[in-house]
């Protein structure tokens, strides 16, 4: 059964580093792990994507261990504007149309 698991919520303070983990057993071997950010009353938007090891962009870092059974989104020095829901998106299956599954989301609240 294709399933991803994320913590329901996390709390942080401005300036701290936040790490959000998504667990995903048996994902496709050759596909990306992608993270999205969603603000209230908006659609999700792409943050970062990776296949293995570590990926960094201007917004976040993504850590993927060798077994690819989980991934961790790292937000350095969060601000109030990082308060949002964060979703991981993974692919299950290696044939035909990829079975893309979103995690249930992690609600991050950043306080002053």
């Amino acid at each position, binding site marked *: 059964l294709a399933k991803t698991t994320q913590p329901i919520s996390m709390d942080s303070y401005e300036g701290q580093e936040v790490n959000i983990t998504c667990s995903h057993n048996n994902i496709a071997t050759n596909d*990306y792990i*992608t993270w999205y950010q969603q603000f209230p*009353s908006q*659609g999700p938007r792409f943050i970062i*994507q990776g296949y293995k090891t570590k990926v960094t962009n201007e917004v976040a870092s993504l850590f993927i261990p060798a077994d690819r059974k989980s991934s961790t989104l790292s937000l350095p020095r969060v601000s109030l504007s990082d308060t949002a829901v964060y979703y991981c*998106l993974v692919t299950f299956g290696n044939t035909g*149309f990829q079975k*893309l599954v*979103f995690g249930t*989301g992690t609600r991050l609240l950043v306080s002053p």
Partner: protein
Amino acid sequence: NAGVTQTPKFRVLKTGQSMTLLCAQDMNHEYMYWYRQDPGMGLRLIHYSVGEGTTAKGEVPDGYNVSRLKKQNFLLGLESAAPSQTSVYFCASSKREDQETQYFGPGTRLLVL
């Protein structure tokens, strides 16, 4: 370049009524998707399309129909709305070669009484 747009933004229906949600994208993407989002359940795929004239069922297709007559448009229909279909509906699109990078519309909030 508007990206992905959805019409309407909000709608109230009575049980048994029908309606169509419209999604349009101007990025020339091959793939398009309809999701519903409910509290605590994340995004669940209703139907998707890999090209003009083709559609397929996702995780929760019952009670919905779709059509993709033009590459840029993807329509989601509710033939006989039920209270269980109260949700926020998101449309998304992607390139064929990068399905993990999806571009989402702003959503349609639907309330079925």
